[in-house]
């Protein structure tokens, strides 16, 4: 079934973002068990998984057009949300190639790519773009290659340079982030940019993940899920705009908690790039309200148990102290105590309520 785009939905001010039943069921629910702690939960990024969000290298859903418009708006307000250090130009072209080829294969009805030697023609039907350019010639595109293509994909992206057995975040398109500043972090090492994360550093999670990623092979991408919670379906929860979205956290009440509080999931993907040996890191953000999640019995039981038992340091880091108990109290009567099965699949094809 071809997805119906909803180009006018909004992720700020009026918050007209809504999910169809299909869109709820394809949500990459982040908890495979009834309790949560940081781990190196990395697996091969192969097509096919517990929900339809895992069916493509770069997932496109019904919010595609609206998210690209939101990105354009953030970039107008703050052009430095997209920056690439000069030594990463080869990685920019690598990323453009990977994304264009993947989209054209996974969504032939929406995207096509044709090549005549170095002269490529890219067609993006949902956004109405038709671009002929010369691969390797920056002046033949309206933006740098990385910015050009990442304006046309959902989710944030960073480019990691690998040198001296370390990864450095030396480029990025970051407009839908969960409270980390790209302008502040650009140029940082893997260990530095994860410096503020509690507990995981002490558990050695980042040392192990780094060792794993330094050996990442071309053509064998990997993925993991990360999560937090966001009030209202707001994509741009950057530290830059914290004075804009921070007050939302005080607006949650026992009456509106189900609609206001959203589970924010990042489907994180990592691809080794062929020419530059850099790594493309995709951070694809999905937002689902508590009221949409409770329509799946397994998810409402598990979300209640995870939030109820969450380590206080994690709740603090994720900015949840003001409203976590309200979410737990709201979910508690909906948790019948029935054991849940392992894994994140919804195990239903229709929604309750």
């Amino acid at each position, binding site marked *: 079934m071809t997805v119906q785009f909803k180009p006018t939905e909004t992720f700020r001010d009026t918050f007209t973002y809504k999910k169809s039943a299909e869109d709820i069921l394809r949500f990459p629910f982040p908890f495979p068990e009834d309790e949560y702690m940081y781990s190196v939960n990395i697996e091969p990024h192969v097509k096919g998984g517990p929900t339809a969000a895992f069916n493509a290298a770069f997932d496109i859903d019904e919010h595609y057009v609206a998210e690209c418009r939101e990105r354009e708006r953030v970039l107008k307000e703050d052009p430095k949300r997209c920056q690439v250090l000069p030594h990463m130009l080869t990685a920019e072209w690598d990323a453009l190639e990977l994304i264009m080829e993947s989209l054209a294969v996974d969504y032939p009805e929406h995207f096509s790519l044709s090549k005549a030697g170095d002269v490529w023609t890219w067609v993006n039907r949902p956004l109405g773009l038709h671009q002929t350019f010369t691969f390797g010639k920056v002046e033949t595109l309206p933006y740098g290659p990385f910015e050009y293509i990442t304006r046309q994909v959902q989710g944030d992206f960073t480019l990691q340079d690998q040198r001296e057995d370390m990864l450095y975040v030396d480029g990025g398109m970051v407009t839908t982030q969960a409270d980390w500043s790209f302008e*502040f972090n*650009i*140029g940082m090492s893997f260990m530095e940019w*994860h*410096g503020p994360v509690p507990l995981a*550093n002490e558990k050695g999670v980042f040392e192990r993940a780094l060792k794993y990623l330094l050996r990442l092979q071309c053509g064998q991408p990997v993925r993991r899920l990360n999560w937090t919670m966001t009030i209202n379906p707001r994509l741009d929860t950057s*530290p*830059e705009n*914290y004075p804009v979205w921070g*007050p939302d956290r005080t607006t949650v009440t026992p009456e509106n908690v189900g609609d206001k509080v959203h589970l924010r999931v990042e489907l994180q993907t990592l691809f080794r790039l062929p020419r530059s040996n850099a790594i493309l890191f995709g951070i694809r953000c999905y937002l689902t309200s508590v009221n949409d999640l409770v329509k799946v019995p397994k998810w409402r039981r598990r979300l209640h148990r995870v939030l109820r038992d969450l380590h206080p340091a994690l709740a603090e880091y994720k900015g949840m102290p003001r409203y976590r108990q309200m979410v737990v109290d709201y979910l508690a009567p909906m948790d019948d105590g029935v054991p849940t099965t392992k894994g994140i699949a919804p195990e239903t094809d229709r929604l309750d309520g």
Partner: protein
Amino acid sequence: MSDQGIKSKPTYSKIAGDKAARYQLLLVEGAGIPSEAMAEGGDPSAFETWTVAHASALPAAPMMDEAPGAVRPFRSTQHLLSALEERLDRETMGLRLYAIGTEPFLWDAFNIASAAGLSRQEMQFAHAGPKARRIYCVHCRTMMEGVTTSIVTCKGCGAALFVRDHFSKRLAAYMGVQVDAEAPGEVPQAEELYK
């Protein structure tokens, strides 16, 4: 509160020198080398040394030799840093760069040296002098020098900023983030932490 557990906060060591160096240049943000900044057995007479006099009147004919043991004074920290770029442009492989001073000085020197092609392994940094911080306002990008308190008012946008331990070497600054963004007006008492 003084340790926020953030791993991007830099750590420093003493200057030990490097026997494998072809040439060694030491930058000191002060008139003399503080003895506590040198590792045991470290011998500054093996380095070309640049110092900061914090005085406009320099000797009429200051030492300008580019040689081990030479000590060249500069009027100010900025005066020294402005000469560093040109000096490093003329250098070749095998140079080791050392710096002793405040955090903003060390990381300003680091950024100049990185742009000149030196890697972190070719540098040594010793932290000496005041612990006051350079703060980057994450909301409006204003830099503030000499911050000694846990909370500071941004000179650019007026936000009351909490001073995090999250440090960017590229900006040579710690992050300041609005402390009362969620509930405007709820600003805790500032504490004198970084002196």
